[in-house]
């Protein structure tokens, strides 16, 4: 098992003929992901690497029955693309697009929840269940099938942690990037709940950063509901207040959203907090979490 994606996942790529969409469609196919169709308005009837392209999601759904969509369309059109997937009953929508205005996300967040859809992102690397499906842009070769669940607000920092896990013999059940924006569809708490209920996952790594209170809420949830060992890392201990650190959501407002209060909250919930992300394997070993080999 794994979370959210597996060998039953049938992927629709929105924005499949764009530079990123096309490149990552090929990468996902190469990994063995079932990419069944793509959508680019006005490009219906073409194909990308053998994947049929449709003008609308409605048509792609009717002809190819996807159960998941991944969105690469540019930021000004991302909100519309998400709505199109939701309106066509796709239950898992992964939005890679960076730069979606926060006022687009406010009504959308509630809209997807009201329709029972799971949205991942925006501004995220997507997710991978190693060995079965990759629905995202992460470099596949650093992952191994295994038992550690990884959830993160960041992209490359997740790769750093995954590579360090793999190097130490810890594979991953699933690795999910929830996105670096202030409002994202899936929170740490949602992902923790999925990992806690996934029998394949034996330990969880949570990678947070400054800004907002998602890590504090995660800490409360861990204390109350998570029985599996959790290791955490918070990026941005040296970040100055009031500055947006690359990610739209990574900002210390006044004195709230600091790394130190997040680290303290996680520690109080029994999470082992790393001082350096590449030490994740050593720390799991010190907690007596068994390796996957």
């Amino acid at each position, binding site marked *: 098992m794994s979370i959210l994606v597996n060998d039953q996942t049938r992927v629709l790529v929105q924005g499949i003929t764009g530079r990123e969409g096309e490149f990552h469609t090929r990468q996902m196919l190469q990994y063995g992901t079932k990419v069944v169709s793509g959508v680019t308005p006005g490009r219906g009837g073409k194909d990308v690497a053998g994947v049929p392209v449709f003008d609308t999601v409605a048509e792609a759904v009717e002809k190819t029955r996807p159960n998941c969509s991944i969105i690469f369309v540019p930021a000004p059109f991302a909100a519309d693309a998400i709505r199109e997937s939701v309106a066509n009953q796709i239950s898992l929508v992964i939005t890679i697009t960076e730069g979606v*205005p926060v*006022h687009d996300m406010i009504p959308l967040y509630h809209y997807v929840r009201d329709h029972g859809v799971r949205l991942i992102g925006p501004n995220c690397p997507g997710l991978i269940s190693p060995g079965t499906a990759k629905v995202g842009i992460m470099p596949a070769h650093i992952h191994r099938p295994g038992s550690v669940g990884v959830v993160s607000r960041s992209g*490359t920092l997740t790769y*750093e942690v995954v590579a360090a896990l793999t190097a130490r013999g810890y594979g991953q059940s699933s690795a999910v990037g929830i996105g670096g924006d202030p409002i994202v569809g899936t929170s740490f708490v949602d992902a923790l709940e999925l990992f806690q209920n996934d029998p394949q996952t034996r330990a969880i790594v949570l990678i947070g950063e400054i800004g907002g209170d998602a890590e504090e809420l995660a800490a409360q949830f861990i204390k109350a509901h998570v029985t599996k060992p959790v290791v955490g890392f918070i*990026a941005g201990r*040296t970040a100055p207040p009031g500055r947006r*650190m*690359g990610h*739209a959501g990574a900002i210390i407002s006044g004195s709230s959203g600091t790394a130190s209060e997040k680290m303290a909250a996680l520690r109080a919930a029994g999470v082992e907090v790393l001082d350096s992300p*590449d030490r994740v394997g050593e720390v799991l070993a010190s907690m007596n979490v068994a390796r996957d080999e």
Partner: protein
Amino acid sequence: MNLHEYQAKEFLRREGVPIPSGEVASTPAEAAAIAQKIGRPVVVKAQVLTGGRGKAGGVKLAQTPAEAEAVASKILGMDIRGHLVRKVLVTDAAAIAREIYLGAIVDRSTRSVVLMVSAEGGVEIEEVARTAPEKIMRISIDPYLGFSDYQGREIGFALGLDARQVRVFSQIARALVNTLVTNDASLLEINPLVVTPSGELLGLDAKMVIDDNALYRHSEFEALRDVEAEDPIERRAREEGITYIKLDGTVGCVVNGAGLAMATMDVIKLHGAEPANFLDIGGGARSERVAAALSLILSDAKVKAVLFNIFGGITRCDEVARGIVSALDSLGGAKVPIVVRLAGVNEAEGREILKQANIVAVSSMSEAAQAVVVAASGNAEEGRR
């Protein structure tokens, strides 16, 4: 993007919020002319993108145009928390009976716009949140239906305003939410919103932060950007498409990805040095952008050593290596030691390119951080000798 007080007030005025009359001046003579036009006592206020202007002496009352000129000549050119005052707002001085805080924010916890109101106006809301959180009212705005007048009435009556004032207050609250949403602002504050002795409501100060992600649909904001207030290196970076934030340390860093860039700064600190900057070259950066990043960092005289921390994914290690080599060629070699960490896609090709240029790449982040901290302190020693 942060707007100046006078810019934020203009948006509010257009939506019907009562704001005292006033104009912006860049010289003392202009300040006097505006005061003359207003024809009553004025307040001269420094326009800088930072808080604490009052305490720093950047806000002064003037009874006459001559006094306004004298006060403006003191405030213009003043340094407030590292911000040079280039403009002052000269505005009608209002009499104050009471001060209220009224703000609208994008609230991350409820994923909605939230109105924040406090009877303790005139002080920073964060200060109130710390000392007397029970005094702050928070009202969620429905994500589909928006603001409703009953919400304004509930707050207005809770503040103890009379029926006539409550009507005006409700209109102001509605205008605040509308201004926030239509301009893609993530924060908009009127602080203080005052009640005058004759019972009128007036917005005396305002703060507005625009969501950078939405700038593409507001071309009018580009003209409002105060480029002179930006750090010159940060401005160059923005024009190159690089996210750069200047800090005070000695170790420059070039990283792909915001989370990894923050983590790199943290690990530099962990090994005993201070980062000189945050820098994210973005996904899929080509060699030209890498070269631009390196030359940006080297233009900061405090930098004693540079760390490249690259985890290749969309960004390819060979592109980064080519960028480093070409930047060093065009700069005629590095004046400071450079440590390169490459991992991920096309790592071997990248290492080979660097090797040809006599640069050794390391493969772990901690190892790289240790090496760059040693290099920076060695270089600083040499500088002292």
